């Protein structure tokens, strides 16, 4: 047996992408805590607001969209920490970096899997919480749409900060300090779109803007995450 390049059947990029996605989903499925805890955190934080502010349904309906958006933000940041850390600790990240396929797509696969297990469930439960916060019916659809577009942006942007801090022994709150200011634009347009449908104007403009932001994030953020990972593993 001789080892020549021609005898080795290389995987296609798509196959490597799918393998990484499958693996991450499998790990999330096996480590249920990492998935369930951020979700529970989200539900609990949202239910604390009425207690802290006021049970008055009119006031709640005013702040509902903002409360849900900020809680989503915090929950997504919390779940983010696991994105690369265990891979870094067990050495899988090195294997990922040594893949012959562009790291961009491998990072994208990991971000996608992270969003599927942490972003999507939050989006799906949000109508229930919106009901509990007395958000007017007219805004439900917009809220879900804006969350559907906004949560992947947060995953993609947060991934950069996680990648930068993955090698740190004591990350503490540094992740929050870096990520939270970055999510201001998403928060603004997310809440503005809900506000628009509450005012009976069309939220389409904001959602389109958010879609544009998502497009930019998908094309640039994995590049930054990949660079950050190479720096951190260096």
């Amino acid at each position, binding site marked *: 047996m001789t080892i020549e390049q021609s005898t080795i059947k290389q995987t296609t990029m798509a196959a490597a992408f799918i393998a990484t996605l499958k693996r991450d989903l499998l790990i999330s499925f096996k480590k249920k805590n990492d998935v369930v805890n951020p979700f529970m955190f989200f539900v609990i934080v949202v239910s604390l607001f009425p207690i802290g502010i006021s049970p008055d349904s009119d006031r709640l309906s005013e702040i509902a969209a903002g409360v849900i958006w900020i809680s989503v933000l915090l929950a997504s940041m919390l779940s983010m920490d696991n994105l690369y850390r265990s891979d870094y600790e067990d050495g899988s990240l090195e294997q990922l970096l040594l893949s012959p396929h562009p790291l961009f797509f491998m990072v994208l696969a990991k971000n996608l899997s992270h969003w599927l297990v942490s972003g999507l469930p939050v989006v799906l439960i949000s109508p229930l919480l919106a009901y509990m916060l007395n958000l007017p019916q007219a805004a439900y659809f917009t809220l879900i749409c804006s969350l559907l577009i906004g949560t992947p942006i947060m995953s993609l942007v947060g991934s950069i900060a996680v990648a930068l*801090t993955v*090698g740190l022994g004591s990350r503490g709150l*540094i992740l929050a300090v*870096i990520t939270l*200011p*970055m999510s201001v*634009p998403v928060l*603004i347009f997310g809440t503005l779109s809900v506000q628009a449908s509450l005012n009976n104007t069309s939220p389409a403009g904001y959602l389109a803007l958010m879609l544009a932001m998502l497009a930019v994030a998908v094309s640039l953020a994995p590049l930054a995450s990949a660079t950050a990972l190479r*720096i951190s593993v260096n």
Partner: protein
Amino acid sequence: MWLWFSKLGSPKWFYELSGRWLPWLIAAMTIFITVGVIWGLLYLPPDYQQGYTSRILIVHVAVAGTSLAFFPLMAVAGVITMVWRMKLADMVAKMAAPIGAWFSFLTLATGSIWGSISWGTWWEWTDARLVTMLFQLFLLLGVISLRSALEDQDKAAKACALLSIVGLINVVVIKYSVEWWNVLHQVASPVSLSADSPNGPQFWIAIAIMIVAMYLFLSVSLILATRNEILQRERRSQWVQDLVRQS
């Protein structure tokens, strides 16, 4: 070749060049600050609308305008660090972040003092500029805390370079989204910090002088800090040791 040049040549070259320039820069800075402050305090006529508060504005606008330079500066230094691995660029970026935080903080402080007179409140969420400045301060603090968290100097240099580039994009996006956000929250918009209100040419000359003064001050403080950083990082090199012996 390039690597060798940037690694060994640059800090020394910068140190010597900046040593020659520093007296002139300090002299120019002193003149501009003195002229600007005296002009502002003594000669600036009270604005018919804003009264004496234009004296605050000249400081505030100059500091604010200068603090906008920090993220572009750090991002450019970051690109140089990542592409050409020039150590000097990283030293400049490292020292720029805290100075930038100072600038942003002073912008916020003077802005809110101005606001307390003109708006009757110390903080106004409807002013896009102050809100943007607040988030710029947060982003700068993020860069600083990332720098202090990473122990490996090389890693810290690259990580902060990347974060500065991402941060620059973010500041720009935040600026536009906050402006948009304000336009749409049709709160009775207070007098903005811009040139809406009629001010005489005296005011604009004062602001121009102060802006030049602040950029000079930025360069002087950045050069001073960078020279310290060079002395520390290059302490093993022969020229720094000679310099220390002579001192």
